[in-house]
């Protein structure tokens, strides 16, 4: 009987493909836009996630994100080290600087100074060269997206730059997730960064902390705040701060929210119209079925199977489209590090289910009211 429902559904190929296309299109729209949205705002947290070993970030109480930070006196490091439960703490500087390239162009860069001795604060992986190159004088490591922006089509290794009238030689490329603004990032040692960044009296932007017990990082961050008067955020909290900052300060959530809404509306419109037209066209057949004694619940199940097939096919193709999209653009520096959070396909699945349930329910109302006699009219 359910097979009959499916034959009924695919009998009119035009309508069937219309339905599948509608579902696939709205799935694609919702999934792809949500994916880009999530990845885009998570760019605000990339600075935090690039540092793989710090459990807690300590900063001045007014600092908000990795890029919006107010410097602390250098003894803040010792204060943090004095807190019980802190296994280790290292200095970290993040600052904006202008770099003069060989051609004389001026480019804004982010200079990140990592602890001299341990190099904590560098991205986990290197694309070219090793992190040891920082022990050579005047060395900097550039991030891979910065490479494509500053040195399109050539290797930056060995290039000389001028930072605050000081020489800097690029000796490595780091594999890092770019920041929201895709600024070129130069990693160097803390002591070297102090020379590269013309600055004020206080220079220390962050203290990176490793907790003795990483599972109790939250409690430790509260203790650090209590004992030092500084602001301490766990890694996830600080990543969230970065995301929040972008949500609050840009129009991105609104724009993408509108697109996702449009995807939903388009889905409802196409699928709803086609599905109810399809059911209305088949009302005679349903009537006939009722006439031969098929119950309403059986008919409900038949429609559910039809909706399920359309939904599954459309949704599968839509998600596949999104995967192809992300995969196809994964080589593009703008989309570096983009991924599909597993929650998003579930959200679009829910949206598809809602669309189908809504339209199916609307269409079914007529069927259920149909008299078996209507066949003969």
């Amino acid at each position: 009987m359910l097979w009959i429902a499916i034959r009924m559904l695919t009998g009119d190929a035009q309508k069937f493909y219309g339905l599948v296309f509608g579902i696939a299109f709205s799935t694609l729209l919702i999934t792809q836009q949500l994916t880009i949205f999530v990845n885009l705002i998570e760019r605000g947290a990339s600075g935090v996630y690039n540092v793989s070993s710090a459990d807690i970030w300590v900063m001045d109480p007014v600092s908000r994100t990795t890029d919006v930070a107010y410097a602390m006196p250098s003894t803040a490091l010792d204060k943090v080290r004095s807190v019980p439960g802190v296994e280790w703490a290292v200095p970290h500087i993040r600052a904006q600087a202008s770099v003069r390239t060989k051609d004389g162009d001026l480019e804004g860069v982010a200079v990140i100074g990592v602890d001299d001795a341990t190099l904590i604060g560098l991205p986990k992986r290197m694309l070219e060269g090793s992190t040891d190159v920082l022990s050579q004088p005047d060395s900097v490591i550039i991030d891979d997206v910065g490479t494509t922006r500053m040195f399109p089509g050539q290797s930056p290794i060995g290039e000389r730059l001028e930072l605050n009238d000081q020489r800097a030689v690029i000796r490595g490329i780091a594999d890092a997730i770019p920041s929201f603004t895709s600024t070129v990032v130069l990693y160097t040692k803390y002591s070297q960064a102090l020379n590269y960044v013309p600055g004020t009296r206080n220079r220390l932007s962050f203290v990176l902390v490793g907790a003795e017990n990483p599972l109790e990082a939250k409690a430790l961050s509260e203790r650090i705040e209590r004992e030092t008067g500084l602001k301490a955020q766990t890694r996830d909290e600080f990543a969230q701060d970065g995301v929040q900052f972008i949500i609050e300060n840009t129009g991105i959530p609104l724009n993408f929210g509108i697109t996702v809404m449009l995807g939903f509306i388009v889905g409802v419109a196409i699928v709803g119209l086609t599905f109810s037209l399809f059911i209305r066209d088949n009302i005679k057949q349903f009537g006939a079925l009722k006439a031969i004694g098929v119950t309403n619940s059986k008919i409900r199940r038949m429609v559910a199977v039809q909706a399920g097939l359309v939904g599954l096919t459309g949704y599968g193709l839509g998600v596949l489209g999104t995967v192809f999209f992300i995969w196809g653009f994964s080589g593009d520096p703008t989309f570096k590090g983009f991924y599909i959070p597993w929650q998003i396909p579930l959200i679009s699945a829910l949206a598809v289910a809602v669309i189908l349930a809504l339209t199916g329910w609307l269409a079914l109302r007529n069927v259920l009211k149909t008299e078996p006699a209507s066949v003969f009219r």
Partner: protein
Amino acid sequence: MALDWKNLSFSRQILPAIALLGLLAAVLFIFVGLPDRNLTEPDREPPRAPAELAAQARVAGAGVVEPSSETIQIGSALSGLITGLFVQPGDRVTEGQVLFTVDDRAVRAQLREANAAIAEARASIAEARSAQATAAQQLALYRNVDDPAAVSRAEVIRAEGEAAAARERLSLAQARLQAAQARAGSAQTEIARLTVRAPIAGEILAVNIRKGEYVSTMGGSGSQPFIEMGQTQPLHVRIDIDEEQAPRVALGAPATVSPRGASDRRVEAEFVRAEPLVVPKRSLTNSAAERVDVRVLQVIYELPETNGLFRVGQQVDAYIAAKGAEE
């Protein structure tokens, strides 16, 4: 119904199959593509609190290794060219050992001059003595003549005058001798001052002069000291502690010290003293103008013998027990 190949329908069987396979592929892609945000242990050992202080109240500080005598910047009392340099960095010297000598030709010439003047003065003393003797004999001769008419009064007065003048010449010559001797003595002192000696026993840490260079009493070029030395057995370490943390430090307790870059090699350092003066912290930025920020209490600790792990001027990280920890 299903596996009838002739009856295979694109829309009924192939398309849903493609969709299902696509879904599976997507699931795989999504889970493979999830970003790696796991926390990792740092590759290189960062400075950690020692185990016994891990869960206790503690104070951390950064410091610099210095000689136990502190660094002595050897100066020169006189300026001139360096004619002899007798030490190298790393040499161990005893107290009073010659470090370098400054050109002494001019002073030696003065000494020779003074010696000549001494000889001259001695000669004039001898000459004055013989003149005095002659005059005294003449005067005695006149005085022994009883007949007043035999010798005129004027002759006697002249003889008396000659005797007195000869006495004066002798004392003048003696005074000249003393002056010349004093000049010789001062030239010898100058010669001694042109030889710079080690004020204490210790190790030569830096030699910034070379033979033939000019040293001035105003200090070296670029305000570099000529020679830096200090007692490096034992070494001390000067730990800076933020003034806000200073009241918490358990003064007298040992400190756990590790050098930068070798934080796994920790040593226990004995408390020596806390400096009575709280000073502005020097941020070692290597920039031309050292920056001044917060004030720090400086606490001195004595490092144990570690066979070259610590060197003078090296930066270290230190952990000290806080007051609450002992109670």
